[in-house]
């Protein structure tokens, strides 16, 4: 695995986390996005994430410098031509993923493996956009990638054993534990966590308890590191909603209906940590400042 040519497509939060994890493991990686500016923004994000780690005593400046030197930002998708492993980390929408995989399939060498980091979408459907469905596999990393020690390795209908072995080797290179998932909507982690987040939103909307108290109780009561509403804010409320809609669409069960409060907040553009406000308020560094007044409460006081 060391020396393997790796390329990540998509320099958003997931792409940044993966690039940082790969470089921290001592390997080099190319990070592609549509424009040089976007790729550079990815690099800036990685740098800021490592600065936070230095502040928490987890890293030194010289560690950071060596790690950053292993990440190459670019806007040239043609660099995937000779990559052995191509990792897709673009937004979780089937149409854009299919477009990208079709395009990369025509560029990349025939023996390279494609990894999609989708949290809910069908690997088999994504793979069908390529001429190499046996070499396509899902690896669902959770954010923040550098901190969460587990990854779901998702086999599509046609994924072959060699591809699976490459994925496990990649997971081990990053020092991640992995679980095997046979493709099914939502895999394991997304499917189990989404209804819980949704239910916490219902509890808040129905006025049962405050956002702070809901999170407080779930943290202390069940040993979670963060409460469900904070977790939803961290994931991005738009992302949580799109996952719920995907589960509803695929599994057609009432329990996957997104909470009306969630829909309302997404429509209002209150998407959580990334917009500075969700169920709680955040500063620019992403530190929680306190509870936000949510639309349901506002209506009550009016």
């Amino acid at each position, binding site marked *: 695995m060391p020396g393997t040519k790796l390329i990540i497509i998509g320099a958003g939060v997931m792409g940044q986390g993966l690039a940082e994890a790969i470089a921290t493991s001592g390997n080099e990686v190319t990070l592609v996005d549509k424009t040089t500016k976007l790729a550079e923004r990815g690099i800036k994000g990685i740098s800021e994430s490592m600065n936070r*780690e230095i502040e*928490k*005593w*987890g*890293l*030194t400046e*010289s*560690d950071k*410098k*060596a790690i950053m030197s292993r990440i190459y930002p670019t806007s040239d998708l043609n660099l995937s031509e000779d990559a052995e492993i191509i990792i897709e980390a673009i937004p979780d929408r089937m149409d854009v993923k299919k477009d990208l995989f079709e395009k990369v399939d025509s560029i990349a060498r025939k023996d390279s493996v494609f990894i999609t980091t989708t949290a809910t979408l069908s690997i088999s459907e994504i793979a069908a956009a390529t001429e190499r469905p046996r070499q396509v596999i899902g690896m669902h990393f959770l954010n923040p990638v550098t901190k969460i020690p587990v990854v779901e390795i998702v086999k599509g209908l046609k994924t072959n054993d060699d591809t699976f072995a490459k994925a496990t080797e990649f997971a081990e290179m990053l020092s991640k534990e992995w679980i095997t998932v046979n493709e099914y909507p939502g895999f394991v982690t997304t499917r189990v966590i989404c209804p819980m987040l949704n239910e916490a939103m219902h509890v808040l909307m129905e006025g049962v308890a405050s956002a702070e108290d809901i999170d407080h109780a779930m943290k202390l009561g069940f040993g979670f590191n963060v409460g469900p509403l904070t977790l939803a804010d961290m994931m991005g409320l738009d992302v949580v909603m799109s996952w719920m809609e995907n589960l509803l669409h695929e599994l057609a069960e009432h329990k996957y209906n997104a909470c009306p409060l969630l829909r309302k907040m997404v429509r209002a553009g209150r998407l959580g940590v990334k917009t500075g406000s969700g169920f709680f308020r955040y500063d620019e560094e992403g530190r929680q400042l306190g509870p936000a007044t949510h639309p349901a409460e506002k209506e009550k006081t009016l």
Partner: protein
Amino acid sequence: MNILVINCGSSSVKYQLIDMDGERQLAKGMVSRIGMSASVLTHKAAEKEEVKITREILDHIQAIEQVVAILLSPNHGVIHDVNEIGAVGHRVVHGGEHFTDSAVIDDSVMRELRNLIELAPLHNPHNIRGIVACQRTLPDARQVAVFDTAMHAKMPPYAYIYGIPYILYKRYQIRRYGFHGMSHYYVSQRAAAMMGKDRSELKIITCHLGNGASVAAIDSGTSIDTSMGFTPLEGLLMGTRCGDMDPAIILHIMSREELTLHEANTLMNKHSGVAGISGVSSDMREVIQASNEGNPTAKLALDTYCYRIKKYIGAYAAAMNGVDCVVFTGGVGENSVNVRRIVCDKMDYLGLKLDLDLNKTTRATETDVAASDATVRALVIPTNEELVIARDTKRLIDGD
């Protein structure tokens, strides 16, 4: 046979090429400041001028490539073909309980070395990177791992056991291992030679003071106790390591600062010690300079550093029922006049007293800097871990 000795530290790679017929050093050098903007490769071939190359070298793999390249270079090199390097001896910090002697490296040894990373997070990964880089660059040369822990393997159980449930020792091999074995071994041998005695007649306290630092009590040639423990974190205050402290402190900090295990580990290994107290540097020369210029935290770091060493000398004199000589080695021990002076100040009850003038002029040469009326010798001895590694590498390759 020529043996290449590789010693990968946290921010440096030291190397020597030794012709084992006559133990003649063909070339030696060091890549320092790895990971910083101006890394320096210092290379000296025997009977040639030293060359110094400054460039950015970001990790140990790049460093080893540079070392092999300069050994082969037409201008500064000493060999014409990589095959002239018959074997590579690697310093490996932690051998755990698995390695009680040096080992020829194969796949199973590599696996075992990786398992040991947890025990020495600041060192073993760099040692392994050095091995991997050499396997890539010198695929035909045999590789041998020589461990820092082996010298201390004969320590009595009451010196190596910790005061925690015994079952944890059985389950995880949690015990004192000690480190810097090659250095303590080499300087104790040289000390005996300088005193014209056999090691079996002597009680020696060896202080290896480098970026990492440890003290060993060597009674009749056997290390009976040493300040580093389960990992190289225990004992003296070091460049960036905290050394001895109340273990409850780290639990308290973890809870107050909400640190993960990894962050707590890095805090103690990379952000503490002389650098952590002084806020100036992990380099003792810079700390002493700042202290002389009146920087109060630099002075505090220097005083704390020396006080810890003094305490260990006293403890080990008690453990051995006496001491015949105290040895100073390692970068700081060999060169720092101030550290030797502060450590040995007011130790005359023990019979340890320096000739201050001689101490002041002694740097990195074998010298007895004790006052003429002192009953305990104070020896400055430049260490030579590389020679110990080369000899062991030859012994294993020959015996194979």
